[in-house]
């Protein structure tokens, strides 16, 4: 399931929603991304996430379908927020549910690595010197490239 939304979310409730009707699930892995107050040694007062409505949902659905092709998952969820957020706020949540932990752990990491390099989101950080667009990091490409099937 894909949710692209401005509002905050409740991690516990989201896990419960995925698991309560499906008792074949034996393990749940999750990743929760938060807004930090420091980036590149600069203090951040807030961050605004811009995205490409339509393509965002399409890319996230493709990434989720790919994870379900590679691993046997009983349920999965990606929530990504957009708009203005302050340090400590939740930005992104990935949950994967499977019979055993290995598929849940691996697919959760895969989803985050792919999301970071493919989903059309851009971060604008607010610092004391004004707004600054965040540069993409090579390490994110490296993290995603290890999942390339040979």
């Amino acid at each position: 399931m894909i949710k692209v939304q401005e509002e905050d979310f409740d991690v516990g409730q989201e896990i419960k929603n995925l698991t309560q009707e499906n008792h074949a699930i034996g393990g749940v892995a999750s990743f929760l991304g938060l807004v930090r107050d420091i980036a590149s040694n600069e203090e951040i007062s807030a961050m605004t996430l811009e995205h490409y409505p339509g393509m965002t949902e399409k890319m996230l659905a493709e990434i989720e379908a790919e994870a379900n092709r590679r691993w046997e998952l009983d349920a999965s969820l990606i929530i990504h927020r957009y708009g203005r957020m302050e340090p400590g706020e939740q930005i992104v949540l990935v949950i994967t549910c499977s019979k055993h932990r290995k598929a849940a752990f691996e697919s959760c990491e895969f989803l985050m690595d792919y999301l970071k390099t493919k989903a059309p989101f851009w971060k604008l950080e607010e610092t004391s010197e004004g707004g600054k667009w965040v540069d993409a990091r090579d390490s994110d490409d490296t993290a995603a490239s290890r999942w390339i099937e040979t």
Partner: protein
Amino acid sequence: MKILYFAWLRTTIGKSTEEITPPETVKTVSDLLDWMPSLGENYSSALEKRDLLRIAINQEYADPEHVIKPDDEVALFPPVTGG
């Protein structure tokens, strides 16, 4: 065709979307990026780092050789930084 700009491309060009009609010689994404700087100084400065840019045609990533059609939705944006 409809064209969309995001992040610093949007702020440099000064708009998020517009309708453009490139000349007939513009066949591919790469041709489009060659032609766009002629639209003004804001376009040429936005396209200075064109090797860095990502292109989506109808909401799917596309290569520079991708052929574009008049009713396509073309999006130009910097590498993504979500998550």
